[in-house]
C-alpha cells in the first residue's frame, strides 16, 4: 500500500489530489465522485448553483467536512481520521469564509497573530510584524487595534484574508468570499484576491464573480448536483461551454 508520505512535496506533483470523493449528509448525497488535481500556483475557480456541493468539496480539503469515500491528498499528506495529518493539512491551508468568522472578542491584530503564536510557536513580536505587513497588503493597517465589530464587511473580509495568510499557507481556500458583502465592498475584497492570485500562491475559489475568474483563474470547474459537469480554462468555459447545464447557468448569472 502506498503510504501518504511517499510523494510529499515534489514540485512536479499536484499539490491537491482528489480521487472519487463521495460525501453524504444522512441519506442526501452531496458529493458524487469528485476528481480534481490542482498544480502548485494554480488559481482555480469553482462555480455552480447553490446546493451543488462546491462549498462542501473545498471544506473536505481541510477536513471541515469529512468525506466518506475516495481519497484526498493535500501537499503529500492524505486527509484521513488521523488528527496529526488533519492538523498538518490545516496548517498549510488558509481558509476564508462567506461570513468572515472573525473572532469578535479579539482585536484585528490578535485575530491575525493568534494562530502563528500558538500553532507556529512564533515569538509575539515576529507574529505582530508579519501581521502588520499583511494588513498593509490588504490596505487597512490603521485598523489593527480595532475590534471586528467596528469594521465594515469589506474590511472584515480583508482582515480574514490577512488572518489566513499569517500562517503562510501553501494553499488558500475561499468559500464564497464576497457573497455576504454589500455591492460597493465587493471590489475592495476582489482587488486583494487578485493581488494574491498574482503572487503565485495556490488558490481554490468558490465564487460567482465571473470578472474575477476571467482576470486570474487558470482553470474553472462547474459543479452541479454533486458532480463536476465541466472544466476548462476561462476562455473555453465562457466562449464554448460544451454542456447545456453550463450554458444555462452562465446565461442566468451573466445576464443581470
Amino acid at each position: 500500500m502506498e503510504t501518504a508520505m511517499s510523494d510529499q512535496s515534489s514540485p512536479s506533483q499536484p499539490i491537491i489530489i482528489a480521487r472519487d470523493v463521495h460525501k453524504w449528509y444522512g441519506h442526501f448525497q452531496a458529493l458524487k465522485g469528485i476528481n480534481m488535481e490542482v498544480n502548485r500556483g494554480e488559481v482555480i475557480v469553482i462555480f455552480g448553483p447553490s446546493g451543488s456541493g462546491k462549498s462542501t468539496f473545498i471544506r473536505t480539503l481541510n477536513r471541515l467536512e469529512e468525506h466518506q469515500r475516495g481519497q484526498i491528498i493535500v501537499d503529500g499528506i492524505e486527509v484521513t481520521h488521523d488528527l496529526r495529518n488533519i492538523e498538518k493539512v490545516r496548517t498549510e491551508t488558509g481558509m476564508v469564509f462567506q461570513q468572515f468568522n472573525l473572532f469578535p472578542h479579539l482585536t484585528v491584530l490578535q485575530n491575525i497573530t493568534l494562530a502563528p503564536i500558538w500553532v507556529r510557536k512564533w515569538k509575539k513580536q515576529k507574529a505582530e510584524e508579519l501581521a502588520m505587513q499583511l494588513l498593509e497588503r490588504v490596505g487597512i493597517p490603521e485598523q489593527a487595534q480595532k475590534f471586528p465589530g467596528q469594521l465594515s464587511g469589506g474590511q472584515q473580509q480583508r482582515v480574514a484574508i490577512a488572518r489566513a495568510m499569517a500562517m503562510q499557507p501553501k494553499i488558500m481556500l475561499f468559500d464564497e468570499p464576497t457573497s455576504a458583502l454589500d455591492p460597493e465592498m465587493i471590489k475592495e475584497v476582489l482587488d486583494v484576491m487578485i493581488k494574491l492570485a498574482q503572487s503565485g500562491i495556490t488558490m481554490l475559489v468558490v465564487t460567482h464573480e465571473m470578472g474575477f475568474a476571467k482576470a486570474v483563474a487558470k482553470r474553472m470547474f462547474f459543479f452541479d448536483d454533486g458532480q463536476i459537469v465541466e472544466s476548462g480554462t476561462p476562455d473555453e468555459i465562457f466562449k464554448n461551454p460544451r454542456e447545456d447545464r453550463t450554458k444555462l447557468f452562465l446565461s442566468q448569472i451573466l445576464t443581470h
Partner: protein
Amino acid sequence: MAHTTARQGILPPPTERYSVLGWLHKNLFSTWYNSLLSILALLLIYSLARGFLTWLISEAEWEVVRVNLRLLMVGQYPSAETWRIWLCLYLLAGITGLSWGVWVRGRWLLGAALLAAPLLISLAPGVTSTARNQLLGIDLAALLGFAIGRAGGKRLRRIAIILWVLYFPLVLLIVRGLALAESWLPIVTSNLWGGLLLTFLLTIVGISFSFPLGILLALGRRSSLPAVRWVSVSYIEVFRGVPLVTILFMASTMVPLFFPPGTRPDPVLRAMVGITIFTAAYLAENVRGGLQAIPAGQFEAAHALGLNGFQTMTFIILPQALRLVIPVLMGLFIALFKDTSLVATIGLLELLGISRSILAQPQFVGYQHEVLLFITMIYWIFCYFLSYISQRLEKSLGVGER
C-alpha cells in the same frame, strides 16, 4: 437665530422638570379615581407597616446585637487570632484599591461611598476601639492600593489579576492556619469558624471550585466521547434533581460511611463539598447555554487555522461563551451566597446558625426580631452589592450589545 439652530438640528432635547407638587399631581393625583386609588394605597401601606414602624422606633432593643456582634461576625474564632481575619480584610481592601486604580480610575462618588462604608461601621455602637482602628486601617490599605494602581497603570493589570486569583486560596490558608512552626499561624479548627466569616468562606469555596468543575461538566456534556458525555449528563441531571438541603444532609450523614471508621471528616468541609457539587451542576447548564450561542463558524475558523481542540476552546469559544453568561452566573453566585444559610440545618454556625444559637440562650430569648432583621440587612447589603457589580460588569464587557 432660533430658526438656524433648529435647521441644523442642534437643539437640546426637551427636559421635563417638575416640582414635588407637580410630580405628585402628575403621578398620583391626575384624576379623581387615581387620587382615590392613591389614598387607599397609602392607607393600606400605613396599616401594614404601622406595627413594624412602631416596633422599630420605640420597642426594638439592639443590645442583643451589640453584645453578640463578635459572635455574629466570626463565631468562636479565637480572640488571639482575630488579627488574621483583619489581615484578610486588609488584603481585600488593598487589592480592590489596586484594581480600582488600574481599571476604574474615575467614578469618585462610588469610590468614596465604598471608603465611607468602613468609617460608618466604625461609628456604629458596639464596635470596639481596636476594631475601629482596624476599620480605619482598611481604608488606608485601600487608598494605598489605589495609589499604587494609579501610578502603575496598565502594567499592573496582569499582577492585579494574579493577586485576585491567589487571594481566595490565601484567605483559606490564613484563616485555617499553617502550623509550620510551633507557634506560627497555629491551626484554627473549623468548628470554631462561624458567623459571617463562615458564610463568606462557604461562598468563596463554593464559587472557586464549582466554577472550574461546572465548565468541565459543560464541555463534557458536549464531548464526542460517549463515556465522558454520559458521566457529565448523569452528574448534572442527578444533582439538579435534588434540593440542596438533601445534598447537605446526605453529605453530613452519608459521607462518613465512605471513610474508615474512627475518622470523621470535618463537617465544614462536608458542607463545602455539598455546596460545590450542587452549584457545579447548575453552573454547567448555564455555561452550556453560552456555548450553544457561539456560532459554528467560530469553531470552523479556529480549526481552519490549525488550532487544536483545546486551543479552540481556551482562546476562542470559552471567552465568548462565559462573557455571554456573566449575568446568569452572577445570579447563581448570589443564590449560592444566600443558600449557605441552609448549612444551619446540619448544625453549622454560619450567620443564621449562630443567630439561632444566640437566641437559644436564656438571656436573649425574645430578641429574635432584632437579630433576624440585622442578619437580613447583612444578606441584603452583600447581595445588592454583588448584583450591582454584575450590572457594571455587563456594561463594561458589552454583553447583549453584539
